[in-house]
């Protein structure tokens, strides 16, 4: 029982990180109806932003929660700007082009970030060790169950960000515009909504959340390299599809599900199958209920 609960805790904390990445996939899909393949690589850049900026920040701010918070903000801001830039340079010129053209461009952007990151004078192909932002300690341990401070931080940060996102999307004018745009783009422009600006904004928010996810991920798994975004990116994508892509609560639900399924598989079956199980879930979902568990309507015809 304790082991089971422990796996649940581990799964949920992994899921919380996936959720931050999955939200970006789902929001961007919502407004542009396409899968931003480069999202996992934006996440990767987020980890490197933290890696490079930490020494600078800790010099003036010292080590502690304030610095950790500053690193988080820096990663979010940096990733947000990167996302906006990618959209502007690579995706915007392709509006109204066939979806496959955009998809391949997105794969190109993804490869570009991965390969450029591997160049020696950029990030380098080798593993780097992410700085310890917060000393790890056991918040709770006993009777075979433990909860680390890093896990608590993951939960708190992820939940706060998700709540902020909810307020943004449900209550603010630009948030409502974002939803309006995802329902009907031409109707939105007839309202006087500058659709390009809202799309940029969506990329900023989605990518910034990936930056936050990267900071939390690197805190938990401090070995970073330029390909680190591939698997978490794919898994978060699966989570978004599971919850019904374009559906914000669905992405969160799907992420917790995927995170838990992954740790359960690793714990009870074999760690080597933790990636395969995620793809297995993806395929089952796409074959039996492509609109996702919480999605409505059919698969959009392309």
């Amino acid at each position, binding site marked *: 029982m304790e082991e089971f609960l422990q796996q649940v805790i581990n799964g949920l904390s992994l899921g919380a990180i996936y959720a931050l990445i999955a939200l970006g996939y789902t929001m961007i899909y919502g407004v542009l109806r396409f899968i931003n393949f480069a999202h996992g690589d934006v996440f990767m850049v987020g980890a490197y932003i933290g890696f490079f900026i930490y020494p600078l920040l800790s010099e003036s701010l010292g080590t502690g929660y304030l610095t950790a918070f500053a690193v988080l903000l820096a990663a979010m801001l940096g990733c947000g700007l990167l996302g906006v830039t990618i959209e502007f340079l690579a995706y915007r010129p392709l509006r109204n082009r066939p979806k496959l053209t955009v998809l391949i461009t997105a794969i190109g952007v993804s490869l570009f970030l991965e390969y450029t990151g591997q160049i020696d004078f950029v990030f380098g192909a080798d593993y780097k060790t992410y700085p310890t932002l917060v000393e790890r300690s056991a918040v709770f341990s006993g009777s075979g169950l433990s909860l680390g401070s890093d896990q608590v931080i993951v939960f708190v940060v992820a939940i706060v960000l998700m709540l902020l996102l909810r307020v943004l999307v449900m209550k603010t004018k630009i948030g409502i515009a974002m*939803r*309006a745009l995802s*329902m*009907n783009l*031409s*109707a939105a422009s*007839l*309202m*006087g*909504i500058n659709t390009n600006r809202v799309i940029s904004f969506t990329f900023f928010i989605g990518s910034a959340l990936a930056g936050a996810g990267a900071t939390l991920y690197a805190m938990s798994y401090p070995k970073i390299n330029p390909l680190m975004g591939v698997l978490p990116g794919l898994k978060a994508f699966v989570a978004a599809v599971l919850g019904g892509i374009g559906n914000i609560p669905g992405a969160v639900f799907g992420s917790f599900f995927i995170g838990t399924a992954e740790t359960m598989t690793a714990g009870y079956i074999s760690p080597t199958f933790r990636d395969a199980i995620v793809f297995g879930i993806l395929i089952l979902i796409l074959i039996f209920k492509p609109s996702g568990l919480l999605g409505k309507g059919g698969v959009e015809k392309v």
Partner: protein
Amino acid sequence: MLQVEHLHVNYGAISAIKGISFTVPERSIVTLIGANGAGKTTTLRTISGLVKAASGKILFKGEDITSIPPHHIVSIGISQSPEGRMIFPELTVLENLKMGAYRRKDAKGIQEDMEYCFNIFPRLKERIKQAGGTLSGGEQQMLAIARALMSKPSLLLLDEPSLGIAPLLVKLIFEKIVEINRDLGTTMLLVEQNAAMALNIAHHAYVLETGEITLEGNASDLAQNEEVQKAYLGM
């Protein structure tokens, strides 16, 4: 107020609008009638900036607005209640109306205009917290018109407000269109397949056939025209 001059619009290799010209005088209701596929919706979409014109000019208050992006078109005072209503289905009635006022900053004015909309369409007030997608067709049409009014337009483009709506409600909606024109002095360009209703409320009318204007005149005169009667009024 609005002048369209020799407008051409193409979809790929197909020419949808073949050099039409018409004018909409201030405070008037002008209607474009014609069959399905005549190019009525394309004309409105081009005025709103959703479709690019191949050639020709669109002048609004004397200024050339031919290649201005849609969100600027709303800012200068043209709004549209589009074909098929295009309500945001998952936004509430209130949120839909707020989106209509997206470019406005005057909270007080927005409030007043919303009151006005609820005044002419009391049903919307009853359903204020309901999602747009759950409204009936007629209610959605009311919402589409109200939403377009929320930008405080001087020119309102109405695309097929009668489409797919119960006849009794069509009558009501057309009465409201006249009421809005009278109360607010909003100029209207109405596109309709239901020629009888349109000619009944419009001041001036144009007949559009496969991308070309074939007839024009005073609305009541056109209603008496034999060809129009045969082709569009089913007489």
